[in-house]
């Protein structure tokens, strides 16, 4: 039996409270290291239950313009994989409860290389990982070594993941399942609620893990509606877009950058908590 993780404890507590998880995504080091740290440290109080931290990559193929720009801002400000792990360590000094998931692409991990990255991620206080371009077919490379170290490997299930493929996607998934609500990139079209409801129900028939829904969720109303058919909702593009709109003319953090992100998280959290029924 796997030891209980921060992710497991978090979802168990939410279940007891009867409310959906609010999962927030921001990119590490966007728009700079110190501002990013202040944003992260304030997320739990603003209403985030789980924090996804994007590992910036030069070529984020699955991301829309908002997350692409966020990734490039962070890289321009000097963010690296080492500094991303440092950010997690500094967060953990202040908060030892909120689950942290690193999300990104394989190449910066691969060249780290894999074993050293997984060791340092675990030691920094990372709870799980989402690596967009490592499918279950390559589990031996990264997913299984992550699980051996007690890290959860969270898999994306998508509208194209049919019944024949679903068992492979779920096989080594732990923590929760992330349902990508649209065929597309992050921050694109709004999901169709009836489709999401049917798909989440289908996934839940095959796994006891919580299922959260993301990609294209922007408003408190959307979050509330989607929360009615899943165990949680992920919001990312709307947050990094808020960072962008608060930057000064020099592209650096403005006076409102941190508070504006926390405000939108509060609004989304309030919307989410008014969700009526749990599945």
């Amino acid at each position, binding site marked *: 039996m796997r030891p209980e993780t921060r992710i497991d404890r978090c979802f168990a507590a939410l279940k007891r409270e009867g409310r959906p998880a609010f999962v927030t995504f921001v990119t590490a080091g966007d728009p700079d290291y110190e501002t990013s740290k202040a944003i992260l440290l304030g997320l739990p109080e603003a209403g985030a239950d789980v924090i996804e931290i994007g590992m910036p990559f*030069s070529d984020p193929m*699955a991301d829309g313009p908002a997350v692409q720009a966020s990734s490039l801002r962070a890289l321009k400000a000097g963010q690296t994989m080492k500094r991303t792990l440092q950010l997690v360590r500094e967060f953990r000094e202040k908060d030892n409860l909120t689950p942290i998931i690193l999300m990104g692409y394989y190449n910066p991990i691969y060249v*780290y290389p894999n074993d050293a990255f997984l060791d340092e991620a675990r030691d920094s206080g990372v709870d799980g990982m989402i690596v967009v371009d490592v499918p279950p077919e390559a589990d*031996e490379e990264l997913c299984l070594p992550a699980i051996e170290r007690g890290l959860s490997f969270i*898999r994306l299930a998508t509208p194209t993941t049919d019944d024949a493929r679903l068992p492979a996607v779920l096989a080594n998934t732990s923590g929760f399942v992330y349902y990508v609500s649209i065929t597309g*990139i992050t921050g694109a079209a709004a999901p169709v609620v009836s489709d999401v409801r049917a798909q989440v129900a289908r996934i839940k028939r095959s796994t006891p893990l919580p299922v959260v829904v993301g990609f294209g969720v922007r408003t408190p109303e959307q979050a509330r509606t989607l929360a009615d058919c899943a165990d949680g909702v992920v919001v990312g593009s709307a947050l990094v877009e808020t960072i962008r709109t608060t930057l000064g003319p020099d592209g650096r953090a403005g006076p409102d950058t941190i508070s504006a992100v926390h405000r939108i998280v509060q609004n989304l959290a309030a919307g989410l908590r008014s969700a009526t029924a749990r599945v």
Partner: protein
Amino acid sequence: MPSPTKSEPQAPNSFRAGPDDHGFFGLYGGRFVAETLMPLILELEKAYEAAKNDPAFQAELRDLLEHYGGRPSPLYYAERLTEHLKGAKIYFKRDELNHTGSHKINNCLGQIQLARRMGKTRIIAETGAGQHGVAVATVCARFGLPCEIYMGATDVARQSPNVARMHMLGAKVNSVTAGAGTLKDSMNEALRDWVTNVRDTYYIIGTAAGPHPYPAMVRDFQAVIGNEVRKQMLEREGRLPDTLVAAIGGGSNAIGLFHPFLDDKSVKIFGVEAAGHGIDVPNGHNASMNGGRPGVLHGNRTYLIQDEDGQILEGHSISAGLDYPGVGPEHSWLKDTGRVSYVPITDTEALAAFQLCAKLEGIIPALEPSHALAYVMKLAPTLPKDDLLVMNMCGRGDKDVFAVAGYLGMKI
């Protein structure tokens, strides 16, 4: 599944057996794509395997290659260049004479047939120099399918004749401003389109790279080049060539020429990479095998130009078609096994070769094969006169005349 960091140390029994069932050439290749695309990639693999073994598919493709594409392309003895370089006997494989002006049509005719078999109703593609974009727009016009081409903004500017051709053929050209606006960025955008429109859209990748089965499939469609050379050289000279030279961006024309000869030990093989401003200039070249290291991008593991943190660099080449920080995975494997030598050629060397070829042979080459030619200029004088050297003239230079005139300060 191979170890993720170790390549096979010993030489294999055959260099022509790859990829394995998981799409790997040793350490390289694979299927590193988002889950949304995985079911389609697996479906594509099945569809391609079925088509490959279907005599009707192959017969239709042969007919198209001959009567629409203009194959076989000639194997031409470059007599004046041979005299000038005073060494190996130099032949050009004239793939620049194909319909649309490059080897790209070989692959596009194959993939459009596959897309139709799979019932796909919309085609997308990336392009660097625009040669692949033109070939895709051409086959889409021929078969009546709507088509969108992603092309970096830098490339749109430096290859404007090809942009006009794509428009005239009815394609929509999307100019990509992300990054340096070159081939890497256009491939990112094409992948974003594909993941969004995965159900009805077929992505015609233009080079022997990307997730499995693309590297093997594109190679198979381009192997017509090497198979013809083999037959033509046997007819002309009564024996196999001794030396093969081809330019490498993603590496589709090169693998097409090389693959049929990989198990002929007497044949020396050279792939020519774009060294841009020079192999020692940081971020100033796109010689991924000479100046990069293994990583994962665009669906495959391969040599990449990248920084210490694993961020992909833009690199540089005068040739839009070689201006890509990666390379097809089979080339990475052929490099590690030592079967093929990969050598760098700079912008300046390629420009000199471009001019020499125009004046000595009356052939204006594209900037991509100008790199191969520049290496031939170094190599041929070191070889005996009876060494039969074949260089793939994979594209014509019409698209490059304005850009080259600019570099040379010519008033036109």
